[in-house]
């Protein structure tokens, strides 16, 4: 999957949840959305990009959400 496209989509999701006053809620919202709506190979490709240093364009809030919820997002959905 195109990593730039995935980063763009993830950042868009981050932009929505960035309005949450509590950053923990924002991170949880981002992770929950990706878990519920992204197909597995999309999530795996995003993490692969993150691990290989190709995802530097990710917004900090999104990177934090991905790090915090890594197990859930690479495991089962929902």
């Amino acid at each position: 999957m195109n990593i730039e496209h995935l980063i763009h989509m993830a950042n868009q999701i981050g932009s929505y949840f960035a309005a949450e006053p509590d950053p923990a809620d924002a991170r949880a919202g981002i992770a929950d959305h990706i878990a519920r709506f992204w197909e597995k190979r999309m999530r795996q490709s995003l993490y692969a990009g993150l691990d290989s240093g190709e995802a530097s364009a990710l917004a900090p809030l999104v990177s934090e959400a991905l790090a915090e919820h890594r197990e859930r997002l690479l495991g089962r959905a929902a």
Partner: protein
Amino acid sequence: MSLHCHHDRGTPARVSTERVTLSIDGMSVTVPAGTSILHAAAEAGVDIPKLCATESLEAFGSCRLCVVQVKNRRGYPASCTTLVEEGMEVTTENDALFRLRRGVMELYISDHPLDCLTCSANGNCELQDMAGRVGLREVRYADGHNHLAEAADASNPYFNYDPAKCIVCSRCVRACGEVQGTFALTTTERGFDSRIAAAGGTDFLSSECVSCGACVAACPTAALMEKSVIELGQPQRSVTTTCAYCGVGCSLNAELQGEKLVRMVPDPSGGANHGHACVKGRFAWGYATHADRITTPMIRKSIRDPWQAVSWEEAIAHTAAEFRRLQEKHGAESIGSITSSRCTNEETFLVQKLTRAAFGVNNVDTCARVCHSPTGYGLKQTLGESAGTQDFDSVMQADVILLIGANPTDGHPVFGSRMKQRLRQGAKLIVADPRAIDLVDTPHVRAAHHLKLRPGTNVALINALAHVVVSEGLVDEAFVALRCEPEAFAKWRTFIADPRHSPEATEEVTGVPAAEMRAAARLYATTGNGAIYYGLGVTEHSQGSTMVIGIANLAMATGNIGRPGVGVNPLRGQNNVQGSCDMGSFPHELPGYRHVSDVETRTLFESVWGVPLSDEPGLRIPNMFDAAISGSFKGLYVQGEDIAQSDPNTHHVTAALESLECLVVQDLFLNETAKFAHVFLPGASFLEKDGTFTNAERRISRVRKVMRPLAEYADWEVTQMLSNALGYPMNYRHPSEIMDEIARLMPTFHGVSYEKLDRLGSVQWPCNETHPEGTPTMHIDEFVRGKGRFMLTEYVATEERVNRRFPLLLTTGRILSQYNVGAQTRRTANTVWHPEDILELHPVDAEDRGIREGDWVGVQSRAGETVLRAKISERMQPGVVYTTFHWPGSGANVVTTENSDWATNCPEYKVTAVQITRVEQPSVWQKQFERFSEEQMSLLKASTEAKPAHASV
């Protein structure tokens, strides 16, 4: 005049708590106050003769045929214009009335051709019926001046106007005004010179007439008559079915001779349309038997190979073998499906079932991805259900209508007419749209406010409106306290009250003056019932879902939800968008909007379907394209959609399609997507199958087969054959059995069956134990999710911004006479009104570029370039241009980008930064498209000239 036996009571039914009892021919009759004597008599089984009166129109009192006598009153009042009174004693038949009526008829017939035997209305003519009814036996005035030599106007492609047969009863004029709301027809001159004329032109075609057919339906003679009836004669049988065009879902009577469709007429008892239709549903059905229909399955190894016509058995076996080969080689997740909003509920249910149960994956999506997927997301999150809250009739109780990003008179014309009826009664209108749509200023309707915002700034606008509601004390505190989550509301109130959301702070972004926004917000919040209607101008944005949430927030904050006259009403684009979503066409949801990870739901489906189901969300359409290009997605089954034309960034879409090893297209025609296919499975039109559609108001209506499938099988049967070939058995004998399974599996459909639909005509889901006859208004006592949930809606500007290279914003839409990708309407006479897509631009932008009306202009974006003809229009605001996407060669989606909604990936069709320049020739893409299309048509021709044979691919 329709073949269908509808008892026309002459004047509209009235609703009143006051009841009036009177005597008609000695019979006691009790009716609501305000009822006409004519209507009351019909209720009592007494049909008084009439000509100018019909139930769909207000009384006019011109023909004098419906005269009666009322005890203790002088003269002979017209029963259509005389209202019932308590104790009134009415006589409908006596010698004096007989003589009067026969005299009236004699005068009418003295100026009417006596060609009944060869007249197109013969056997179905109210004038003829009334002549018989009143016992007319001779005409004493036959030699005087008359209109018999006047020429007919045959300019409209669907109906003729013959003034020689016109009795100037004015039904057509009133239908055009009262029902359609266009006011294109008028009666010119006076007395003997009176005649019907269409305004704004020299004939019907060049006039302001929108060809809805209301005048033709209302005409009691052959003065206005369908060309198809003139050509073929009167139909002999009638089958009630549902229109296959827009999300209004009009009930239509298909009138036939055997299996030959003679005409479509709107069904007066239709719950969505109440006897009205538009130029598409009423007339544009000729595509169903067009010569372009492909009725033989075809296969080929490569898209550069000629098609080989094969038997159904071979096509299905080949498809199944290919899909299994791909799954074995590239993994189960390498294939998927796309369902269609043009197909029935039962068909979309089967395709998603095939995908989940036979393919074993959740890679199924639907064309709602590119239109209303943000509606599904936003309304589910806030209200708890992915659907509009009202029925269409609700608009008649609205006091103020906030219309956002929708153009109902073009996109949903029958509902648009209904909305205009309410606006003419005095409801206020606020339009939020970058363009001046017709409703901004149309006969007898003028918007109180036109919020002419810049494309892409919807969320800033809705936030500004909500800010006014909160900061000016217009919140319905009691409603919010009772019905909504308190913590979420408190958070939202703090958020929206921030000065950054004020009209003054956002007017520079939206382009809408702050005072106009404040006035509009006050009007919506304080004028009784406030109803929001919206369309793709809301959803097709990078913040489409945020905007839907913002709309729900605004409705909840003002208490405008949960009763008739209010609500949040998405105007769905295609006929079965609601239904295809309900049926589980999204890759993350099983039927009934339940997530695939939900164990209880999955267990239920597994127990009925007998196979384990994946708990992982599948690929959405744009994700399928990305996965195809990256090499992990290889096979796709597309039923009834044309993604190569309808989806954004054509270069990207066609690159994805070319990456597939097996693309299977099931369609009526070799559409743009099929030109990239390896298997073509002939589809069946809506006339050739049974099923149901669900319209924008959640109304489930029957689609009924009126002719045998041209290609032998209905679409659901083809999906079933494919499933069986894949080793997953499906053995439905009729679509009613599919609906029975849907009803078992979906709580909102528990009470739905074909028997009930046949009995009630239609039902609106939820239809279950709690609501056995359906639910016109949702969320009455509580929201589906319990408490309503306010959510934050920060405005985030789209990345698709103007700059020096691309200084204009392109927005796209559709027009009245064409439909979606045009596969249907382009194959009808509707092309007379819209033979090509054009680019609308403001005079200032045209002058800056030296562009004149009709010039060829290049439209360039970062995605691509196409060439269209220019139309200079004050509808546009400077800096914004507009086009439609009905013709594939126009290449509108060559220009649109893959930018999409953050939550759903719904494309941002409504905002593309472009430059416009005068050019002299088609774009490079258009030349390539032309060559490719010619090549594909020649490869098709090779197939159609050959008999089905054993193929070797």
